[in-house]
Protein backbone atom coordinates (compact mmCIF):
# COMPACT_ATOMS: atom_id res chain seq x y z
CA UNK A 1 0.00 0.00 0.00
CA UNK A 2 1.60 3.30 -1.02
CA UNK A 3 1.57 6.54 0.92
CA UNK A 4 -1.22 8.26 -0.98
CA UNK A 5 -3.50 5.27 -0.59
CA UNK A 6 -2.76 5.15 3.10
CA UNK A 7 -3.43 8.88 3.22
CA UNK A 8 -6.76 8.44 1.50
CA UNK A 9 -7.73 5.71 3.94
CA UNK A 10 -6.91 8.10 6.77
CA UNK A 11 -9.11 10.79 5.28
CA UNK A 12 -11.99 8.35 4.90
CA UNK A 13 -11.62 7.19 8.51
CA UNK A 14 -11.65 10.80 9.67
CA UNK A 15 -14.73 11.56 7.56
CA UNK A 16 -16.59 8.50 8.80
CA UNK A 17 -15.71 9.21 12.43
CA UNK A 18 -16.90 12.80 12.12
CA UNK A 19 -20.05 11.74 10.28
CA UNK A 20 -20.90 9.36 13.15
CA UNK A 21 -20.53 12.21 15.65
CA UNK A 22 -22.76 14.44 13.53
CA UNK A 23 -25.33 11.68 13.11
CA UNK A 24 -25.40 10.36 16.68
CA UNK A 25 -28.01 12.78 18.10
CA UNK A 26 -30.32 12.15 15.15
CA UNK A 27 -29.89 8.38 15.34
CA UNK A 28 -30.56 8.48 19.09
CA UNK A 29 -33.71 10.55 18.54
CA UNK A 30 -35.03 8.17 15.91
CA UNK A 31 -34.23 5.01 17.89
CA UNK A 32 -35.54 6.47 21.14
CA UNK A 33 -38.79 7.56 19.52
CA UNK A 34 -39.56 3.91 18.78
CA UNK A 35 -38.68 2.53 22.22
CA UNK A 36 -40.85 2.14 25.30
CA UNK A 37 -40.69 5.41 27.26
CA UNK A 38 -38.99 3.99 30.33
CA UNK A 39 -36.10 2.50 28.38
CA UNK A 40 -35.02 5.68 26.60
CA UNK A 41 -33.21 7.29 29.51
CA UNK A 42 -31.90 4.03 30.95
CA UNK A 43 -30.21 3.05 27.70
CA UNK A 44 -29.03 6.51 26.68
CA UNK A 45 -25.50 5.96 27.98
CA UNK A 46 -24.93 2.70 26.14
CA UNK A 47 -24.78 1.67 22.51
CA UNK A 48 -28.36 0.39 22.77
CA UNK A 49 -29.36 4.07 22.65
CA UNK A 50 -29.08 3.65 18.88
CA UNK A 51 -30.95 0.35 18.69
CA UNK A 52 -34.74 0.42 18.91
CA UNK A 53 -35.30 -2.91 20.66
CA UNK A 54 -39.00 -3.69 20.97
CA UNK A 55 -39.88 -0.97 18.50
CA UNK A 56 -43.45 0.29 18.42
CA UNK A 57 -45.32 3.39 17.34
CA UNK A 58 -46.84 3.91 20.81
CA UNK A 59 -44.90 7.12 21.40
CA UNK A 60 -46.14 8.55 18.12
CA UNK A 61 -49.72 7.75 19.09
CA UNK A 62 -49.08 9.44 22.46
CA UNK A 63 -47.88 12.61 20.68
CA UNK A 64 -51.20 12.89 18.84
CA UNK A 65 -53.15 12.08 22.01
CA UNK A 66 -51.25 14.37 24.37
CA UNK A 67 -50.72 17.33 22.03
CA UNK A 68 -52.41 19.12 19.19
CA UNK A 69 -49.56 18.18 16.87
CA UNK A 70 -51.40 18.71 13.58
CA UNK A 71 -52.44 22.17 14.74
CA UNK A 72 -48.81 23.12 15.49
CA UNK A 73 -47.70 21.66 12.18
CA UNK A 74 -50.34 23.65 10.34
CA UNK A 75 -49.34 26.83 12.21
CA UNK A 76 -45.67 26.34 11.31
CA UNK A 77 -46.45 25.63 7.67
CA UNK A 78 -48.92 28.50 7.37
CA UNK A 79 -46.75 31.10 9.10
CA UNK A 80 -43.48 30.12 7.43
CA UNK A 81 -45.15 29.58 4.05
CA UNK A 82 -46.79 32.99 4.08
CA UNK A 83 -43.66 34.81 5.21
CA UNK A 84 -41.54 33.05 2.57
CA UNK A 85 -43.93 33.43 -0.37
CA UNK A 86 -45.00 37.01 0.38
CA UNK A 87 -41.37 37.84 1.15
CA UNK A 88 -40.18 36.51 -2.21
CA UNK A 89 -42.64 38.76 -4.04
CA UNK A 90 -42.23 41.92 -1.97
CA UNK A 91 -38.45 41.78 -1.65
CA UNK A 92 -37.80 40.76 -5.25
CA UNK A 93 -39.96 43.64 -6.52
CA UNK A 94 -38.06 46.08 -4.34
CA UNK A 95 -34.70 44.69 -5.46
CA UNK A 96 -35.84 44.94 -9.07
CA UNK A 97 -36.69 48.62 -8.58
CA UNK A 98 -33.28 49.23 -6.99
CA UNK A 99 -31.27 47.25 -9.52
CA UNK A 100 -33.01 47.98 -12.83
CA UNK A 101 -34.98 51.23 -12.64
CA UNK A 102 -33.84 54.85 -12.57
CA UNK A 103 -35.73 56.85 -10.00
CA UNK A 104 -35.37 59.69 -7.55
CA UNK A 105 -34.67 58.64 -3.99
CA UNK A 106 -33.38 55.25 -5.09
CA UNK A 107 -29.85 55.58 -3.78
CA UNK A 108 -31.00 57.03 -0.48
CA UNK A 109 -33.49 54.21 0.11
CA UNK A 110 -31.04 51.54 -0.99
CA UNK A 111 -28.44 52.84 1.46
CA UNK A 112 -31.11 52.55 4.12
CA UNK A 113 -31.70 48.90 3.17
CA UNK A 114 -27.96 48.21 3.44
CA UNK A 115 -27.82 49.90 6.84
CA UNK A 116 -30.82 47.91 8.12
CA UNK A 117 -29.11 44.64 7.16
CA UNK A 118 -26.90 44.79 10.24
CA UNK A 119 -29.87 45.24 12.59
CA UNK A 120 -30.50 41.83 14.12
CA UNK A 121 -34.07 40.98 15.03
CA UNK A 122 -33.20 40.82 18.73
CA UNK A 123 -32.40 44.54 18.77
CA UNK A 124 -36.00 45.39 17.92
CA UNK A 125 -37.80 42.54 19.69
CA UNK A 126 -38.64 44.60 22.79
CA UNK A 127 -40.49 47.55 21.18
CA UNK A 128 -42.07 45.20 18.65
CA UNK A 129 -43.40 43.05 21.49
CA UNK A 130 -44.58 46.20 23.25
CA UNK A 131 -46.35 47.41 20.10
CA UNK A 132 -47.98 44.05 19.44
CA UNK A 133 -49.23 43.91 23.05
CA UNK A 134 -50.70 47.42 22.89
CA UNK A 135 -52.47 46.67 19.62
CA UNK A 136 -53.92 43.52 21.14
CA UNK A 137 -52.23 41.38 18.49
CA UNK A 138 -50.65 38.83 20.82
CA UNK A 139 -51.62 35.29 19.98
CA UNK A 140 -52.38 36.06 16.33
CA UNK A 141 -50.96 34.93 13.01
CA UNK A 142 -50.61 38.58 11.95
CA UNK A 143 -48.06 39.26 14.69
CA UNK A 144 -46.01 36.30 13.49
CA UNK A 145 -46.23 37.07 9.78
CA UNK A 146 -46.54 40.74 8.95
CA UNK A 147 -43.36 42.10 10.58
CA UNK A 148 -41.14 39.57 8.77
CA UNK A 149 -42.22 39.80 5.14
CA UNK A 150 -40.00 42.74 4.22
CA UNK A 151 -36.39 41.72 4.76
CA UNK A 152 -33.33 43.84 4.05
CA UNK A 153 -31.04 40.88 3.51
CA UNK A 154 -33.40 39.24 1.00
CA UNK A 155 -33.58 42.52 -0.92
CA UNK A 156 -29.80 42.64 -0.96
CA UNK A 157 -29.47 39.04 -2.22
CA UNK A 158 -31.98 39.68 -5.01
CA UNK A 159 -30.31 42.99 -5.83
CA UNK A 160 -26.87 41.47 -6.25
CA UNK A 161 -28.33 38.84 -8.59
CA UNK A 162 -30.50 41.22 -10.65
CA UNK A 163 -27.69 43.73 -11.14
CA UNK A 164 -25.70 41.05 -12.94
CA UNK A 165 -28.43 40.22 -15.52
CA UNK A 166 -27.67 41.57 -19.02
CA UNK A 167 -29.53 44.75 -20.04
CA UNK A 168 -30.55 43.24 -23.40
CA UNK A 169 -33.02 41.01 -21.57
CA UNK A 170 -35.34 43.92 -20.85
CA UNK A 171 -34.67 45.88 -24.00
CA UNK A 172 -36.44 43.51 -26.34
CA UNK A 173 -39.44 43.36 -24.02
CA UNK A 174 -39.65 47.09 -23.50
CA UNK A 175 -39.49 47.69 -27.27
CA UNK A 176 -42.57 45.49 -27.45
CA UNK A 177 -44.22 47.89 -25.04
CA UNK A 178 -44.26 45.67 -21.97
CA UNK A 179 -44.90 47.42 -18.66
CA UNK A 180 -42.35 47.45 -15.87
CA UNK A 181 -44.31 44.87 -13.91
CA UNK A 182 -44.73 42.69 -16.98
CA UNK A 183 -40.98 42.77 -17.61
CA UNK A 184 -40.41 41.70 -14.02
CA UNK A 185 -42.65 38.65 -14.28
CA UNK A 186 -41.89 37.68 -17.88
CA UNK A 187 -38.17 38.42 -18.05
CA UNK A 188 -36.54 38.91 -14.65
CA UNK A 189 -38.23 36.14 -12.66
CA UNK A 190 -37.64 33.28 -15.17
CA UNK A 191 -33.97 34.28 -15.40
CA UNK A 192 -33.45 34.45 -11.66
CA UNK A 193 -34.48 31.02 -10.40
CA UNK A 194 -31.26 30.45 -8.39
CA UNK A 195 -31.76 33.75 -6.56
CA UNK A 196 -35.36 32.88 -5.71
CA UNK A 197 -34.33 29.42 -4.52
CA UNK A 198 -31.55 30.83 -2.31
CA UNK A 199 -33.75 33.46 -0.69
CA UNK A 200 -36.61 30.98 -0.23
CA UNK A 201 -34.33 28.43 1.50
CA UNK A 202 -32.60 30.96 3.73
CA UNK A 203 -35.82 32.57 4.89
CA UNK A 204 -37.47 29.18 5.30
CA UNK A 205 -34.65 27.99 7.60
CA UNK A 206 -34.82 31.23 9.58
CA UNK A 207 -38.57 31.29 10.19
CA UNK A 208 -39.21 27.55 10.44
CA UNK A 209 -36.79 27.35 13.37
CA UNK A 210 -37.54 30.70 14.95
CA UNK A 211 -38.28 30.45 18.66
CA UNK A 212 -37.82 33.74 20.51
CA UNK A 213 -40.57 35.75 18.81
CA UNK A 214 -43.32 33.09 18.79
CA UNK A 215 -42.43 32.33 22.43
CA UNK A 216 -43.03 36.00 23.27
CA UNK A 217 -46.24 36.54 21.31
CA UNK A 218 -48.11 33.25 21.63
CA UNK A 219 -50.05 32.62 24.80
CA UNK A 220 -52.12 29.52 24.02
CA UNK A 221 -51.62 26.65 21.59
CA UNK A 222 -53.94 28.02 18.86
CA UNK A 223 -51.37 29.91 16.78
CA UNK A 224 -48.23 28.37 18.30
CA UNK A 225 -45.65 26.99 15.86
CA UNK A 226 -43.66 23.75 16.32
CA UNK A 227 -40.43 25.12 17.87
CA UNK A 228 -42.35 26.62 20.80
CA UNK A 229 -44.66 23.61 20.96
CA UNK A 230 -41.83 21.10 21.42
CA UNK A 231 -40.23 23.24 24.13
CA UNK A 232 -43.49 23.36 26.05
CA UNK A 233 -44.24 19.67 25.42
CA UNK A 234 -40.86 18.93 26.98
CA UNK A 235 -41.94 20.70 30.18
CA UNK A 236 -45.36 19.02 30.24
CA UNK A 237 -45.52 16.40 33.00
CA UNK A 238 -45.10 13.47 33.08
CA UNK A 239 -41.68 13.65 31.42
CA UNK A 240 -41.77 10.92 28.78
CA UNK A 241 -38.60 10.97 26.73
CA UNK A 242 -39.94 8.54 24.14
CA UNK A 243 -42.89 10.84 23.45
CA UNK A 244 -40.64 13.90 23.24
CA UNK A 245 -38.32 12.17 20.77
CA UNK A 246 -41.32 11.06 18.70
CA UNK A 247 -42.51 14.69 18.63
CA UNK A 248 -39.04 15.77 17.52
CA UNK A 249 -38.88 13.11 14.83
CA UNK A 250 -42.31 14.07 13.47
CA UNK A 251 -41.23 17.68 13.50
CA UNK A 252 -37.97 17.23 11.64
CA UNK A 253 -38.77 14.42 9.18
CA UNK A 254 -40.67 16.47 6.57
CA UNK A 255 -37.93 19.10 6.52
CA UNK A 256 -35.22 16.46 6.45
CA UNK A 257 -36.89 14.74 3.50
CA UNK A 258 -37.08 18.01 1.57
CA UNK A 259 -33.50 18.77 2.50
CA UNK A 260 -32.20 15.38 1.33
CA UNK A 261 -34.01 15.77 -1.98
CA UNK A 262 -32.80 19.29 -2.62
CA UNK A 263 -29.57 19.35 -0.61
CA UNK A 264 -27.65 20.87 -3.52
CA UNK A 265 -29.97 23.88 -3.43
CA UNK A 266 -29.73 24.24 0.33
CA UNK A 267 -25.96 24.26 0.10
CA UNK A 268 -26.02 26.82 -2.71
CA UNK A 269 -28.55 28.96 -0.88
CA UNK A 270 -26.40 29.12 2.23
CA UNK A 271 -23.16 29.64 0.29
CA UNK A 272 -24.76 32.51 -1.61
CA UNK A 273 -25.40 34.30 1.68
CA UNK A 274 -21.64 34.67 2.04
CA UNK A 275 -21.12 36.30 -1.35
CA UNK A 276 -21.58 39.81 -0.12
CA UNK A 277 -19.35 42.73 0.82
Amino acid sequence: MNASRLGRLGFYLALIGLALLFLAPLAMMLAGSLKPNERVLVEAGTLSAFVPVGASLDNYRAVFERTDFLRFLFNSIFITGTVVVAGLLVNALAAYAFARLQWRGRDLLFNLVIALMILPFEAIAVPLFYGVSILGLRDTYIAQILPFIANAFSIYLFYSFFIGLPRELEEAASLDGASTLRIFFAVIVPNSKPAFASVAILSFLTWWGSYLWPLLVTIGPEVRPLPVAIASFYTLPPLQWGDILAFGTLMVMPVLAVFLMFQRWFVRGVASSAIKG
Partner: protein
Amino acid sequence: MSAPRSRRRFNDQTASGLLLAGPAMLGLLLFILAPFLIALALAFTNLRLGSPLPLEFVGLKQFQRIFADPDFLQALSNNLLCALTVVPLQTALALGLALLLNRGLRGTVVFRTLFFMPVVFPMSLVAVVWVLIYAPGPDGMMNGFLDLVTLGAWEPRDFLRDPMLAMPALMLLSIWQGAGFQMVILLAGLQQIPHELYEAAALDGAGRWSQFRHVTLPQLRNPLVFVVLVTSILAFRLFDQVQIMTRGGPNGATTTVMYEAVQAVFTRQQVARASAMTVVFFLLVLAVTWLQRRLARQEREIG
Protein backbone atom coordinates in the same frame (compact mmCIF):
# COMPACT_ATOMS: atom_id res chain seq x y z
CA MET B 1 -50.13 49.48 -13.12
CA SER B 2 -49.77 53.10 -14.16
CA ALA B 3 -46.57 52.92 -16.12
CA PRO B 4 -47.60 54.29 -19.48
CA ARG B 5 -45.20 54.43 -22.38
CA SER B 6 -44.08 57.99 -22.41
CA ARG B 7 -41.05 59.87 -23.54
CA ARG B 8 -39.93 60.25 -19.93
CA ARG B 9 -40.02 56.55 -19.35
CA PHE B 10 -36.34 55.78 -19.77
CA ASN B 11 -34.97 58.63 -17.72
CA ASP B 12 -37.58 58.89 -15.00
CA GLN B 13 -39.18 55.82 -13.52
CA THR B 14 -39.81 57.36 -10.13
CA ALA B 15 -43.45 56.35 -9.99
CA SER B 16 -42.75 52.69 -10.83
CA GLY B 17 -39.70 52.63 -8.60
CA LEU B 18 -41.57 53.89 -5.58
CA LEU B 19 -44.53 51.65 -6.28
CA LEU B 20 -42.43 48.49 -6.61
CA ALA B 21 -40.12 49.24 -3.69
CA GLY B 22 -42.99 50.67 -1.65
CA PRO B 23 -44.35 47.56 0.11
CA ALA B 24 -40.90 46.35 1.17
CA MET B 25 -39.80 49.82 2.28
CA LEU B 26 -43.02 50.29 4.23
CA GLY B 27 -42.42 46.97 6.00
CA LEU B 28 -38.80 47.83 6.80
CA LEU B 29 -39.78 51.27 8.11
CA LEU B 30 -42.71 50.06 10.21
CA PHE B 31 -41.27 46.85 11.60
CA ILE B 32 -37.50 47.37 11.64
CA LEU B 33 -36.48 51.03 11.61
CA ALA B 34 -39.33 52.41 13.76
CA PRO B 35 -39.02 49.73 16.48
CA PHE B 36 -35.27 50.27 16.54
CA LEU B 37 -35.65 54.03 16.97
CA ILE B 38 -38.28 53.39 19.63
CA ALA B 39 -35.90 50.98 21.42
CA LEU B 40 -33.24 53.69 21.36
CA ALA B 41 -35.69 56.25 22.74
CA LEU B 42 -37.19 53.91 25.37
CA ALA B 43 -33.74 53.10 26.71
CA PHE B 44 -33.60 56.66 28.03
CA THR B 45 -36.95 56.47 29.83
CA ASN B 46 -38.38 54.70 32.87
CA LEU B 47 -41.15 52.85 31.00
CA ARG B 48 -42.54 49.84 32.74
CA LEU B 49 -45.81 48.28 31.61
CA GLY B 50 -48.55 48.55 34.21
CA SER B 51 -46.48 50.88 36.37
CA PRO B 52 -48.28 53.83 37.99
CA LEU B 53 -45.21 56.07 37.53
CA PRO B 54 -45.52 58.69 34.76
CA LEU B 55 -43.32 58.20 31.67
CA GLU B 56 -40.14 60.18 32.21
CA PHE B 57 -36.88 60.87 30.45
CA VAL B 58 -34.20 59.51 32.75
CA GLY B 59 -31.10 60.02 30.63
CA LEU B 60 -28.44 57.35 31.02
CA LYS B 61 -29.93 55.99 34.23
CA GLN B 62 -31.05 52.66 32.71
CA PHE B 63 -27.56 52.13 31.32
CA GLN B 64 -25.97 53.00 34.67
CA ARG B 65 -28.37 50.59 36.32
CA ILE B 66 -27.74 47.64 34.02
CA PHE B 67 -23.99 48.14 34.20
CA ALA B 68 -24.23 48.07 37.98
CA ASP B 69 -26.33 44.89 37.86
CA PRO B 70 -24.16 41.82 38.53
CA ASP B 71 -26.62 39.58 36.63
CA PHE B 72 -26.31 41.68 33.50
CA LEU B 73 -22.53 41.89 33.79
CA GLN B 74 -22.38 38.14 34.15
CA ALA B 75 -24.61 37.79 31.08
CA LEU B 76 -22.33 40.09 29.11
CA SER B 77 -19.22 38.19 30.12
CA ASN B 78 -20.94 34.88 29.28
CA ASN B 79 -21.68 36.21 25.80
CA LEU B 80 -18.07 37.30 25.33
CA LEU B 81 -16.74 33.99 26.64
CA CYS B 82 -19.09 32.17 24.31
CA ALA B 83 -17.96 34.19 21.27
CA LEU B 84 -14.28 33.81 22.15
CA THR B 85 -14.63 30.03 22.53
CA VAL B 86 -17.21 29.01 19.95
CA VAL B 87 -15.95 31.18 17.10
CA PRO B 88 -12.38 29.79 16.89
CA LEU B 89 -13.40 26.20 17.66
CA GLN B 90 -16.31 26.10 15.25
CA THR B 91 -14.36 27.85 12.50
CA ALA B 92 -11.42 25.47 12.91
CA LEU B 93 -13.75 22.45 12.79
CA ALA B 94 -15.59 23.84 9.76
CA LEU B 95 -12.32 24.58 7.98
CA GLY B 96 -11.11 21.07 8.72
CA LEU B 97 -14.32 19.59 7.32
CA ALA B 98 -14.16 21.82 4.24
CA LEU B 99 -10.53 20.85 3.58
CA LEU B 100 -11.40 17.15 3.94
CA LEU B 101 -14.28 17.53 1.51
CA ASN B 102 -12.22 19.53 -0.97
CA ARG B 103 -9.88 16.64 -1.74
CA GLY B 104 -12.13 15.26 -4.44
CA LEU B 105 -12.63 11.96 -2.65
CA ARG B 106 -15.59 9.81 -3.61
CA GLY B 107 -18.73 10.24 -1.57
CA THR B 108 -17.98 13.88 -0.87
CA VAL B 109 -21.59 14.91 -1.47
CA VAL B 110 -22.85 12.34 1.04
CA PHE B 111 -20.49 13.57 3.75
CA ARG B 112 -21.23 17.21 2.96
CA THR B 113 -24.95 16.44 3.33
CA LEU B 114 -24.41 14.70 6.68
CA PHE B 115 -22.29 17.53 8.13
CA PHE B 116 -24.78 20.13 6.93
CA MET B 117 -27.85 18.27 8.19
CA PRO B 118 -27.95 19.74 11.74
CA VAL B 119 -28.28 23.20 10.18
CA VAL B 120 -31.84 22.40 9.06
CA PHE B 121 -32.82 21.40 12.62
CA PRO B 122 -34.68 24.05 14.62
CA MET B 123 -32.51 25.07 17.58
CA SER B 124 -35.35 24.42 20.03
CA LEU B 125 -35.52 20.78 18.91
CA VAL B 126 -31.74 20.46 19.14
CA ALA B 127 -31.84 21.93 22.66
CA VAL B 128 -34.51 19.48 23.85
CA VAL B 129 -32.70 16.46 22.38
CA TRP B 130 -29.41 17.56 23.93
CA VAL B 131 -31.03 17.79 27.37
CA LEU B 132 -31.36 14.01 27.08
CA ILE B 133 -27.80 13.67 25.78
CA TYR B 134 -26.56 15.58 28.84
CA ALA B 135 -28.67 13.50 31.25
CA PRO B 136 -26.83 13.14 34.58
CA GLY B 137 -25.41 9.91 35.95
CA PRO B 138 -23.87 6.98 34.10
CA ASP B 139 -27.15 6.67 32.11
CA GLY B 140 -26.49 9.89 30.23
CA MET B 141 -25.28 9.61 26.66
CA MET B 142 -22.51 12.20 27.02
CA ASN B 143 -21.39 10.61 30.28
CA GLY B 144 -21.42 7.20 28.61
CA PHE B 145 -19.44 8.51 25.65
CA LEU B 146 -16.83 10.20 27.83
CA ASP B 147 -16.58 7.05 29.94
CA LEU B 148 -15.88 5.10 26.75
CA VAL B 149 -13.23 7.42 25.30
CA THR B 150 -11.42 7.89 28.64
CA LEU B 151 -11.50 4.12 29.21
CA GLY B 152 -13.54 4.46 32.37
CA ALA B 153 -11.65 7.38 33.93
CA TRP B 154 -14.60 9.78 33.56
CA GLU B 155 -16.73 10.52 36.61
CA PRO B 156 -20.38 11.05 35.56
CA ARG B 157 -21.42 14.72 35.81
CA ASP B 158 -24.68 16.65 35.72
CA PHE B 159 -23.59 18.90 32.86
CA LEU B 160 -26.47 21.37 32.86
CA ARG B 161 -26.45 21.87 36.63
CA ASP B 162 -22.68 22.12 36.98
CA PRO B 163 -21.57 25.80 37.03
CA MET B 164 -18.28 24.87 35.33
CA LEU B 165 -19.80 22.66 32.63
CA ALA B 166 -23.17 24.23 31.81
CA MET B 167 -21.83 26.90 29.46
CA PRO B 168 -19.39 24.58 27.65
CA ALA B 169 -22.30 22.13 27.25
CA LEU B 170 -24.38 24.81 25.51
CA MET B 171 -21.40 25.79 23.38
CA LEU B 172 -20.90 22.22 22.20
CA LEU B 173 -24.37 21.92 20.71
CA SER B 174 -24.02 25.35 19.09
CA ILE B 175 -20.85 24.09 17.42
CA TRP B 176 -22.53 20.83 16.40
CA GLN B 177 -25.44 22.68 14.83
CA GLY B 178 -23.49 25.53 13.22
CA ALA B 179 -20.31 23.91 11.87
CA GLY B 180 -22.04 22.66 8.71
CA PHE B 181 -23.20 26.17 7.85
CA GLN B 182 -19.67 27.52 8.03
CA MET B 183 -18.27 24.48 6.24
CA VAL B 184 -20.48 25.05 3.19
CA ILE B 185 -19.32 28.67 2.90
CA LEU B 186 -15.65 27.80 3.34
CA LEU B 187 -15.96 24.94 0.86
CA ALA B 188 -17.40 27.33 -1.73
CA GLY B 189 -14.44 29.62 -1.02
CA LEU B 190 -11.94 26.77 -1.40
CA GLN B 191 -13.41 25.79 -4.74
CA GLN B 192 -12.87 29.28 -6.09
CA ILE B 193 -9.12 29.22 -5.51
CA PRO B 194 -7.43 28.88 -8.93
CA HIS B 195 -5.45 25.65 -9.36
CA GLU B 196 -2.58 27.54 -10.96
CA LEU B 197 -1.75 29.12 -7.61
CA TYR B 198 -1.09 25.69 -6.10
CA GLU B 199 0.86 24.58 -9.17
CA ALA B 200 3.03 27.69 -9.02
CA ALA B 201 3.60 27.18 -5.30
CA ALA B 202 4.50 23.53 -5.88
CA LEU B 203 6.97 24.56 -8.58
CA ASP B 204 8.56 26.92 -6.08
CA GLY B 205 9.03 23.92 -3.84
CA ALA B 206 6.31 24.73 -1.32
CA GLY B 207 5.19 21.77 0.77
CA ARG B 208 1.58 21.07 1.83
CA TRP B 209 1.74 23.18 4.97
CA SER B 210 3.45 26.02 3.16
CA GLN B 211 0.83 25.91 0.39
CA PHE B 212 -1.91 26.03 3.01
CA ARG B 213 -0.34 29.05 4.71
CA HIS B 214 0.64 31.01 1.63
CA VAL B 215 -2.09 30.09 -0.84
CA THR B 216 -5.17 28.67 0.90
CA LEU B 217 -5.44 30.94 3.91
CA PRO B 218 -4.90 34.28 2.08
CA GLN B 219 -7.28 33.24 -0.71
CA LEU B 220 -9.85 32.16 1.84
CA ARG B 221 -9.67 35.38 3.77
CA ASN B 222 -13.04 36.87 2.80
CA PRO B 223 -15.12 33.73 3.47
CA LEU B 224 -13.23 33.27 6.75
CA VAL B 225 -13.92 36.84 7.83
CA PHE B 226 -17.57 36.31 6.90
CA VAL B 227 -18.06 33.11 8.89
CA VAL B 228 -16.24 34.55 11.89
CA LEU B 229 -18.51 37.60 11.80
CA VAL B 230 -21.71 35.58 11.49
CA THR B 231 -20.71 33.18 14.25
CA SER B 232 -19.71 36.01 16.58
CA ILE B 233 -23.07 37.68 16.12
CA LEU B 234 -24.84 34.34 16.73
CA ALA B 235 -22.87 34.00 19.97
CA PHE B 236 -24.24 37.36 21.10
CA ARG B 237 -27.78 36.38 20.08
CA LEU B 238 -27.63 33.21 22.18
CA PHE B 239 -31.08 32.63 23.66
CA ASP B 240 -33.01 29.49 22.62
CA GLN B 241 -30.65 26.95 24.21
CA VAL B 242 -30.41 28.99 27.40
CA GLN B 243 -34.16 29.36 27.76
CA ILE B 244 -34.88 25.69 27.09
CA MET B 245 -31.94 23.93 28.73
CA THR B 246 -30.81 25.93 31.75
CA ARG B 247 -32.94 29.10 32.18
CA GLY B 248 -29.71 31.00 32.76
CA GLY B 249 -28.63 28.75 35.62
CA PRO B 250 -26.96 27.38 37.58
CA ASN B 251 -26.31 30.64 39.45
CA GLY B 252 -26.29 32.67 36.25
CA ALA B 253 -23.57 30.54 34.67
CA THR B 254 -25.40 30.42 31.34
CA THR B 255 -27.39 33.66 31.34
CA THR B 256 -26.95 35.89 28.29
CA VAL B 257 -27.77 39.47 27.33
CA MET B 258 -30.78 38.39 25.28
CA TYR B 259 -31.98 36.10 28.06
CA GLU B 260 -31.74 38.94 30.58
CA ALA B 261 -33.54 41.32 28.22
CA VAL B 262 -36.37 38.86 27.64
CA GLN B 263 -36.66 38.23 31.38
CA ALA B 264 -36.87 41.96 32.00
CA VAL B 265 -39.58 42.65 29.43
CA PHE B 266 -41.48 39.40 29.59
CA THR B 267 -41.67 38.52 33.25
CA ARG B 268 -41.16 41.95 34.85
CA GLN B 269 -42.54 44.32 32.18
CA GLN B 270 -39.42 46.50 32.48
CA VAL B 271 -39.59 47.79 28.93
CA ALA B 272 -37.05 50.61 29.35
CA ARG B 273 -34.53 48.38 31.07
CA ALA B 274 -34.88 45.69 28.41
CA SER B 275 -34.51 48.35 25.71
CA ALA B 276 -31.25 49.53 27.26
CA MET B 277 -30.02 45.91 27.19
CA THR B 278 -30.90 45.47 23.54
CA VAL B 279 -29.13 48.75 22.71
CA VAL B 280 -25.98 47.36 24.34
CA PHE B 281 -26.51 44.15 22.38
CA PHE B 282 -26.85 46.15 19.16
CA LEU B 283 -23.65 48.10 19.87
CA LEU B 284 -21.81 44.79 20.30
CA VAL B 285 -23.12 43.57 16.93
CA LEU B 286 -22.17 46.89 15.37
CA ALA B 287 -18.64 46.59 16.73
CA VAL B 288 -18.25 43.09 15.29
CA THR B 289 -19.60 44.24 11.92
CA TRP B 290 -17.27 47.24 11.89
CA LEU B 291 -14.34 44.94 12.60
CA GLN B 292 -15.35 42.71 9.71
CA ARG B 293 -15.60 45.63 7.29
CA ARG B 294 -12.13 46.74 8.32
CA LEU B 295 -10.64 43.29 7.85
CA ALA B 296 -12.34 42.87 4.48
CA ARG B 297 -11.14 46.28 3.31
CA GLN B 298 -7.59 45.50 4.32
CA GLU B 299 -7.76 42.46 2.13
CA ARG B 300 -8.83 44.53 -0.85
CA GLU B 301 -5.89 46.88 -0.35
CA ILE B 302 -3.43 44.02 -0.28
CA GLY B 303 -5.04 42.16 -3.15
